[in-house]
């Protein structure tokens, strides 16, 4: 047996409910029944107080931020984002003992280069896509899986505002975890005397990471809004399609997000070795910075637009 979620929040009965965290705080979304098991605080019905799209999104943002931040996924995010910080601490300790933390062909890799490699390999190629997949696909899929999407859709706000609010919460949550982690890694790895020479690169890195988080999050939010099992599809896209397309000569790489992100990375590629030669071949054909930024913003905007359209038109069937 299955039940269909109420198509749009406007038709829902105008009840006020207790906060979703069970704290008894005033509900963030205004009207609608409380969650099962949560005591309802019955109040006089509020009629005709439908907020605007942005106001609705802001309310969902406010509600989702705490939920997203203090969920079990946060442990995963802490592990993923904490590992580069841990690596940087180890590198710093090794460096302080007079040894080279990283050597390539007997040549010591400088701290600024190590930082660049960590941004390139760990953050842009792994952490940002992984967070995008796990959080982006979960924006809608988690509510469907937990059968709580009904409660969101019965609020007097547009369904699209729910998605946008959750996306904003995802962006704030991941950005304010990833960027401080990058900052810590930078100050752990780069000697103080080298900061003036590399600080502009750090700012560029932070900007690229924010763009990457936005683009991947929007893309996987679309996947989550459209597909029933979005996590598998997201992982295949991020670590199958994106990696393979980047290695295939031709125009296929233009259908990846990483193609536009990596063209913005300010750090020079390593110059020696066979793998580096392959990488140099792969990254020879890169778009200009302006094109990359425009494309990443377009991917973000278009994906979010399609996701909003999908969530407003689709009827979610909740399996019992």
């Amino acid at each position, binding site marked *: 047996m299955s039940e269909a979620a109420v198509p749009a929040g406007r038709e829902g009965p105008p009840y006020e409910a207790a906060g979703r965290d069970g704290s008894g705080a005033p509900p963030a979304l205004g009207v609608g029944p409380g969650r099962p098991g949560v005591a309802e605080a019955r109040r006089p019905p509020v009629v005709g107080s439908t907020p605007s799209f942005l106001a609705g999104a802001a309310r969902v943002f406010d509600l989702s931020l*705490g939920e997203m931040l203090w969920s079990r996924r946060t442990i995963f995010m802490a592990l993923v984002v904490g590992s580069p910080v841990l690596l940087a601490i180890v590198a710093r300790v090794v460096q302080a003992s007079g040894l080279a933390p990283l050597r390539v062909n007997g*040549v010591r890799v400088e701290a600024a280069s190590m930082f660049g490699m960590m941004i390139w390999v760990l953050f842009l190629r792994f952490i940002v896509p992984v967070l995008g997949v796990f959080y982006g696909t979960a924006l809608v899929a988690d509510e469907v899986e937990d059968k709580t999407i009904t409660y969101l859709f019965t609020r007097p706000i547009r369904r699209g505002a729910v998605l946008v609010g959750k996306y904003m919460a995802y962006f704030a949550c991941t950005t304010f975890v990833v*960027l401080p982690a990058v900052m810590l890694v930078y*100050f752990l790895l780069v000697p103080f*005397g080298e900061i*003036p020479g590399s600080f502009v690169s750090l700012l560029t890195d932070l900007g690229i990471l924010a763009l990457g988080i936005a683009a991947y999050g929007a893309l996987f939010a679309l996947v989550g809004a459209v597909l029933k099992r979005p996590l598998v599809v997201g992982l295949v896209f991020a670590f199958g399609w994106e990696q393979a397309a980047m290695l295939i000569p031709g125009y296929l790489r233009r259908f990846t997000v990483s193609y536009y992100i990596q063209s913005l990375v300010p750090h020079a590629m390593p110059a020696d070795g066979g793998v580096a030669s392959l990488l140099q071949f792969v990254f020879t054909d890169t778009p200009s910075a302006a094109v990359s930024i425009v494309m990443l913003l377009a991917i973000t905007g278009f994906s979010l637009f399609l996701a909003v359209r999908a969530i407003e038109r689709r009827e979610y069937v909740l399996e019992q």
Partner: protein
Amino acid sequence: MTKRTRLFFFVTVGILVAGLGTGAVASYMGIQNLVLIGRDGPVELAYVPADARVVAFANVREVMDSELRQKLMQLNPGATDGPDKFREETGIDIHSDVDQVIASMSGEATTPENARPLVLVRGRFDNARIESLVRQQGGQPSDYQGTRFLTHPENGFALAFVEPGLVAVGTATAVRRAIDTKASGDNVTGNAEVMRHVKDIDDGNAWVVGRFDALTGGTQLPAELAKQLPAISWFSASGTVNGGVRGVIRAEARDDAAANDLRDVVRGFIALARMQVGQRAEFAELMNSLELGGQGKDVSIGFAVPSELIDALSAMRALRPQPREAQPELEPNLKPWPAPAL
């Protein structure tokens, strides 16, 4: 938003703001202005004029007490001429009286006067004994800016007790200038270029920083060799002496291309050294310690001479046959036949 969510964002935003603020200040105000965070070099730099082209520092106490020095003294017990001569001239015993030495050369290296260093020696001195010794050698005492000043009119040598436990030694002009520099405050710590290099390497018990033309501009290097050297503007070296020696030599090239050329040259020398050393296990650790580094205009090579290598060299020296006594003159009738004329 709950209280702990607000706290979380307060902390993360704080990290971001602190990091960005520190980076911005370091980038746009200059790293040397962050004295609280960066090292500012030894306090004796207050006597070094702002136009210094070479500055060197040695923590003599640490070097003298090091295990390495004890080993070297055992290897070469008669090598004490330099310190003894210095003691004869100044009354200062480097082995026991001196803690730190700062040496510098200022101005252009075109005059012989500027080619001689100013040396600032910190330690425990018997001023009266030093003064009487200098007087015995013909030195004349005087006062300059309230500082006891001893000059030797023949060789131009001068010594001044600039602070309790600190003497300045050098030419009379250089020592007077050091006293003036301290009084005016216009010293080398205001020279951003020198201090940038000093702060980078001020972590060993001996270091030197200098403009490369201080080496090539004077008579120190043959002109032909100087022409072959890559375009280097600054050089620096730092070392830590304990059981062994760990150090790094850095060069700042004039541009990225020159730095790349220099890296290629150093890489070639490292490869050549590896070939020469071959399978000799005692040198393997030294070769493995060589680290070529640097970014942009900077080139650096790090090295470590482990105490095991010093021990191995000592053992090799001990095993080497002692030089024979001088051969007696051959008797006239045993002299070799002259080569036949062709």
